[in-house]
């Protein structure tokens, strides 16, 4: 059977010289298949909106889809963060559309950028650093009130504050691992079942009782079709969940006074 992990293997597509970035050290900026995948996702979004962002009062199909995505994230940011959601809407929308495009491209191409831990960790760190920067910019040192729930007796605070700090620190980890785990899991399962189709089919050619392999092969094929549908849902859902959690975390620091 083909190695189900082979699809996650990164390899260079275009070799570029290493660059010495300040603070990061020497970085190999070669274009890998992962970078190609990210670039294609970003390009796809740009092409989509170049076509969809028409200004017709009566929208066409593509424009309707574009406006639907816009409204989806706009409502999300508005309902969670409140009227200040407008400020963070472009950031949340960029996260959402970028992850969505990478997830969907993974359904059509052999490589899924969001199944790379490096990608999800970067996105999670980007989000949480934005939250921290916004938190300090809005509240100054009042940011630390985030870890001190109001209306709690002092002896409970001894217990609560460490829990709050840990829960905050765990946020980027869960954010990164949730997306990574969903993507890698789905694609591995797809690959394994697809492998079963071939291996069981080959086994069945042996004849005799092994002919039952054809049945197993057919069941595997059905599973792959069903799982592919499921993976499309997961691809959308995970992008949405990432955007929603980003809004929730931003809301914590934007509306800290009412926390």
């Amino acid at each position, binding site marked *: 059977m083909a*190695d189900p*992990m*082979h699809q*996650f*293997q*990164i*390899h*260079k597509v*275009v*070799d570029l010289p290493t660059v010495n*970035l300040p603070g*990061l*050290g020497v*970085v*190999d*900026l*070669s*274009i*890998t298949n*992962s*970078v190609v995948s*990210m*670039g294609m996702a*970003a390009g796809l*979004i*740009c092409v989509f*909106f*170049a076509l*969809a*962002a*028409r*200004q*017709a*009062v009566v*929208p066409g199909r593509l*424009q309707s889809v*574009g*406006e639907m995505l*816009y*409204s989806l994230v*706009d409502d999300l940011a508005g309902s969670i963060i409140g009227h200040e959601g407008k400020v963070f*809407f*472009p*950031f949340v*929308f*960029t996260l959402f*559309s*970028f992850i969505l495009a990478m997830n969907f491209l993974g359904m059509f191409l052999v490589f899924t950028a969001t*199944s*790379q*831990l*490096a*990608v999800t960790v*970067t*996105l999670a760190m*980007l989000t949480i650093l934005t939250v921290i920067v916004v938190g300090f910019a809005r509240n100054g040192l009042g940011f630390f009130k985030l870890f001190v729930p109001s209306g709690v007796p002092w002896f409970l605070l001894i217990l609560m504050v460490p829990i709050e700090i840990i829960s905050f620190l765990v946020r980027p980890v869960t954010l990164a691992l949730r997306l*990574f785990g969903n993507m*890698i899991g789905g694609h591995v399962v797809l690959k394994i079942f697809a492998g079963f189709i071939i291996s069981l089919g080959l086994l069945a050619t042996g004849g005799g009782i092994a002919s039952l392999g054809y049945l197993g092969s057919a069941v595997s094929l059905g599973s792959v079709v069903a799982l592919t549908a499921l993976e499309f849902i997961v691809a959308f859902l995970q992008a949405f969940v990432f955007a929603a959690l980003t809004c929730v975390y931003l809301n914590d620091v934007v509306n800290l006074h009412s926390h």
Partner: protein
Amino acid sequence: MANETTQTHESTGADGHASGGGLPQFQFVWWPGQVVWLLLIFVVLYVLLSKLFLPRVGGTIQTRADKIAADVAQARDLKTQAEAESATALAELAKARTHAQRTASEAKAKANAEAATRQAAEEAVLAEKLAVAEDRIRVSRDAALGNVRTIASDIAAAITDKLTGVAATADEVETALTAAKA
């Protein structure tokens, strides 16, 4: 050169996995490149979306909402205007109707009056003619009645003459007629 390195990496990756190695995601040699490129692409995408595409989409949605609101407001205005005009039209209609009724009744009264005067005039003429006719009849009758007496006296004189052979005087006949009449 590039191909060779790629091949090497792929083979080591596959080998590493076959001997129970970790996921390809944990080959940290690929991390810095991915992180830097991801941040680069993300920033470009963020700038493009926030400065170019999202304002356009949002503007279109806002324009549509404004247009719908304006159209609804305009429709409401037109409706109230139409209602006002309809009320005016109804009032004018009512006014015209009363006016028409008044004119009609006036015309009728005038016609009646004219008819009455004409009838009165006709009746006067007729009455006059009738009176003249009655006068004439009376004169004729009186004349006729006057003649009757002369005829009677003549006849009486003639009869007396025939029966007696003596001609009666006019006074005797006159006396006898007066007595007979009484």
